[in-house]
């Protein structure tokens, strides 16, 4: 496990924070009293046993679910009662645990759909489709960066699973988000893809905040600056990977023999 090169990275500062976050599902408390600070230019991992509430925390942060308790601040604005699309427009973008692309659009079109919004090319029903061509330059840069050039005109449905995840990250990055939330980005990927995606995440984190859920501990150990461990909806440990991994509470609750 090696520390990230700090050289060309921006300075860390808190961009997304949650205080006393809680969510009840008809009597069952899935998330309780979670305080979280996500920093710019850092990769923050959220780990924990299955059912700990990680996906739920994601849903709360991105407003796909409404928290029962607590509040959330994004870039200094209280977003506790906003709609998810609004939050996304403010720069908080997520990926999904189950891969989410637009299957019948080509890779290029997928990326352009994301680019359309910040470029104000979304509501124009009177313009021809070719008006979108001016987004191609930016889209191609992204596609190239993520190694999808070969597949530029392939329909997303025809991509392999790993590439779909990469494409998802590409569309996410197209929005140039301040904060990136990734739910198990490596799940179901081949080892090679894992390496590639880990590399990409490390790169993009140099200029934005990343919060990710991941079970693949070697990835966590490799690229994450900060780890929060969740169990039964509550935070049981926090810190860098080593200190968390050495924590006996964490070992019994989560890591088992693999630590």
């Amino acid at each position, binding site marked *: 496990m090696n520390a990230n090169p700090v050289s060309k990275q921006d300075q860390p500062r808190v961009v997304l924070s949650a205080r006393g976050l809680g969510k009840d*599902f008809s009597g069952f408390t899935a998330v309780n009293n979670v305080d979280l600070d996500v920093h710019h230019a850092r990769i923050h991992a959220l780990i924990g046993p*299955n*059912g*700990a509430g990680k996906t739920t925390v994601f849903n709360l942060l991105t407003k796909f679910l409404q928290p029962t308790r607590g509040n959330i601040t994004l870039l200094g604005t209280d977003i506790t009662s906003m709609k998810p699309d609004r939050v996304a427009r403010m720069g908080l973008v997520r990926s999904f645990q189950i891969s989410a692309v637009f299957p019948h659009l080509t890779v290029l079109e997928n990326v352009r759909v994301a680019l359309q919004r910040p470029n104000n090319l979304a509501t124009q029903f009177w313009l021809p489709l070719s008006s979108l061509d001016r987004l191609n330059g930016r889209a191609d840069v992204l596609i190239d960066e993520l190694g999808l050039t070969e597949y530029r005109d392939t329909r997303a449905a025809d991509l*392999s699973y790993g590439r779909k995840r990469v494409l998802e990250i590409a569309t996410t990055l197209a929005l140039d988000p301040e904060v990136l939330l990734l739910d*198990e980005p490596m799940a179901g990927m081949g080892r090679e893809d894992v390496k590639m995606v880990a590399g990409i995440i490390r790169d993009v984190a140099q200029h934005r905040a990343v919060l990710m859920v991941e*079970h693949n501990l070697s990835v966590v150990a490799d690229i994450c600056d900060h780890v929060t461990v969740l169990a039964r909806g509550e935070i049981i440990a926090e810190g860098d990977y080593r200190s968390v991994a050495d924590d006996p509470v964490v070992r019994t609750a*989560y890591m088992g023999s*693999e630590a």
Partner: protein
Amino acid sequence: MSEPLLNVSDLHAWYGESHILHGVNMHVNQGETICILGRNGMGKTTTLRTVMGILRKRTGEIRFAGHDLMATPLHRTAHTGLGFVPEERGIFATLNVDENLMLPPKVAEGGMSVDEIYKLFPNLKERRNSPGTKLSGGEQQMLAIARILRTGARCLLLDEPTEGLAPVIIDAIGEVLTELKSRGMTVVLVEQNFRFASRVADRFYLMDHGQMVMEFPVSEMEVRREELNQALGV
């Protein structure tokens, strides 16, 4: 040696037009745990689904405990003693944990009782009245396995039971499998997690592009490590 419990020969299968299995040959003896290894998309899941009869566009031969499974309709297959735990787990959202557990009809004597099952999976007991899909991924996986244990199936087809699970839970599942083995259960396991697999399996198959390309007992594991790593792209 007597006839194997499950015998598959020259199995071909298709998803629509795409030919996925190209002549799979494999056998599993009574009481044995075998594990199918292979990279993503090589046809491991497809093999299980074809053997079970869920994927019906297939040719070849599948015999299980004296039954010709090629000719058995899907809803009779379970009654021959084969139990299937799918990759995506298949927990029913509209049923609660208890109902999910009780759902599969008993196909033979000798299954575990509900009490035994809850002893094995205390988490589930705690949530026995919650709707199935309100469980986390790991809880769902446990429930999916537990559900089949009740039916009295003699041979389990397990598709990546450790996928997305926390290490402690993986440990627990490993224990369950060991316990089942000691009771004489036959298991066909599909795994990517080889550390886990080598703990429970007796014999391995390596799958590549819809065929079994290698077969070896667990004892040869160490010898073949290098070869395997290469094949699996580690």
